[in-house]
């Protein structure tokens, strides 16, 4: 009975964590950006015509490894230089709900590949597509759109460690 129980727990852990621990050893470049336009579409449809939005699943959804990779790449490709750690700066924030060009995975993918007119560089051909998906997974994780189990609970950099924030009323010592 006890063995069965342990077996059961192990079974549960193995199966529920498999997505989280997944590693794509030979990532296949996704070709979405090449065959389709994934820019966000307008909800205003003349004559009430059907205009289904393309739905694509990010191959790295829920994968802790790929989200962590996405975070590394987000720094590596200087996304952080313009968007900071999600709060924005030169570019708009990436932690938000009011997306200009859409916040669904395929919208984010499309934005990164093509760039956007007001200063978002076009990264197509520069970042391999599987890495773009990893970055997309990371951006979604910043917005709480990835399973908690797959995202880091606490980052080790000053920007996300609230304990170290000096208060605004005179933190410096004379």
């Amino acid at each position: 009975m006890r063995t069965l129980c342990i077996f059961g727990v192990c079974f549960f852990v193995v199966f529920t964590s498999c997505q989280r621990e997944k590693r794509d050893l030979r990532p296949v470049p996704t070709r979405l950006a090449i065959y389709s336009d994934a820019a966000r579409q307008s909800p205003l449809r003349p004559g009430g015509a059907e205009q289904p939005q393309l739905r694509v699943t990010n191959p790295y959804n829920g994968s802790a490894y790929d989200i962590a990779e996405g975070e590394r790449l987000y720094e590596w490709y200087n996304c952080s230089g313009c968007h900071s750690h999600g709060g924005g700066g030169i570019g708009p924030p990436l932690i938000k709900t009011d997306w200009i060009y859409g916040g669904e995975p395929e919208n984010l993918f499309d934005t990164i590949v093509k760039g956007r007119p007001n200063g978002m560089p076009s990264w197509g051909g520069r970042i391999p597509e599987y890495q773009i998906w990893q970055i997309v997974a990371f951006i979604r994780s910043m917005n709480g759109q990835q399973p908690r189990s797959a995202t880091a609970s606490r980052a080790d950099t000053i920007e996300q460690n609230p304990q170290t924030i000096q208060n605004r009323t005179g933190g410096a010592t004379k």
Partner: protein
Amino acid sequence: MRTSRYIPTWIVLLLPVLSAYAQIQNQPDDGQWTMAAKNYASTRFSALDQINSGNVRNLKLAWTFSTGLTHGHEAAPLIVNNTIYIVTPWPNYLYALDLSKPGAPMKWVYEPDPTPAAQGVACCDVVNRGAAYYNGKIYYNTLDAQTVAVDANTGKEIWKTKLGDINLGESMTMAPIVAKGKVIAGNSGGEFGVRGWMAGLDADTGKIAWRAYATGPDSDVLIGSNFKPFYQAARGKDLGVKTWPGETWKIGGGTGWSWISYDPDLDLIYYGTSNPGPWNPEQRPGDNKWTSTLFARRPETGEAIWAYQFNPHDDHDYDAVNENILLDLNIGGRSRKVLAHPDRNGRMYILDRTNGEVLSAEPFAYQNTSEGVDLKTGRLKVNPNKASGYKTLRDACPAPPGGKDWQPSAYSPKTGLIYIPHNNLCYESQGVRANYISGTPFVGMNVRMYAGPGGNRGAFSAWDPVKAKTLWEVKEMFPAWSGALVTATNIVFYGTMDGWFKALDATNGKLLWQFKTGSGIIGQPVTYKGPDGKQYVAVLSGVGGWAGTVVAGGINTVDGTAALGFTNAMTDLGKYTTKGGTLYVFSLP
């Protein structure tokens, strides 16, 4: 009785004549405003005297003008031939308003159509600091790194010269000056690994006459046989290459994004270069010449005559671009031609502007990153405990925007004081490896700023350049990010980021009048004589700039490192102001 009344009058009449003849800060004033800093000496002092301490409290709004834009409005309006000219942030419209008609209706608007993509390479909001008038033309720079000349009467473009490339991270935001027939302008992009330069363009044709880089071999920096720096550290061949590891000088910053002054007698222009790139100092061991450096050059050829590096191997984003006010002061018992430069590092430098010798460098803002300047070698004595790099640095002051940033001070020959709008910010940081990808940021530093001692994030103070100390200081909740203006009647004007436009008594800092504008003020106040003979005061309101990105850029304040770490210090700005550009013009009833 008779004599005692007449002799003083005689002396009073003669004195200004003598001093105006000898002193650069006392140039004649025609009541116009033809360049951002008012005059070549960059004093922002106006001789107009209708508005005085007795009547300033009656100052009333005369008229307003909406620019229709929502980014930071840092420019100084120009007033020439009864027309007021306003340059806006991107997309860099140039509005001409007719002062001879009631309500100053629009004469024309010139739209240079800079590419929207340029917004991606503007580090700290898509601002523009203004234009210069010369010989019937208005000259200014567009965000996508072009300099334009526009007919001041018709608004027609006369020439447009492309000076930089956004794909290298270059943009332009500074207000040019025109000296000896050359329009002089420099690039922005010290956070993008650009190679900084200053260029001189023929004012009639727009042809590039010279371009002086801040880094690289002497031939590119325009250092030749006439280069005579005061200190040993600046002598030697190709220091713009040798003080960098490998070829990093090619992406080392040193941009010329801010103020230029000009001394016609010495025939020298003065300007400072920006911080080195990347911010992370561990990626660029060495002095990183000629970043964070003051240059004295010939306006016609760009030839360097002397240079002085304020912050060798800068650790804190201390650009040297702040204003250089040219003064003739009595120091140590003799009259000296000096230049006053309130640096980002928090010190007010008084230099001999004939040769670059440092006469004093005392702090005007709270700082703990340096211990003084060695007057023998000219070198800043940095505090080794506050070096930044691949570690967590805490409690370093001033923060990257410095004791003060671009916001220009004013000088009054009446009071002999310099009026400094400034910051009071400290910071913590963590270095990370910056990866150079052209056209994207090259910084390598995660920063978080907060208020310095006292809790006020800004201040407006009066500095005595002879005694090298602060005479009075007014604390401000937010960084004082607007320019200053001082008049012959001892009134000093500036604006605050929560939208107040203030007039203080220049002798003691007492608040005499204030008006709440529609948005935070980060513009440069000016004053002029209208066609009706009345004195007016004008300022652009419209929050933004680096300090105001949190509002103008819609920052999410959960991330303190946003906007290069300024966000952490400004999370509450949105409770005090919203965005939107408007020109406010005031007069006595």
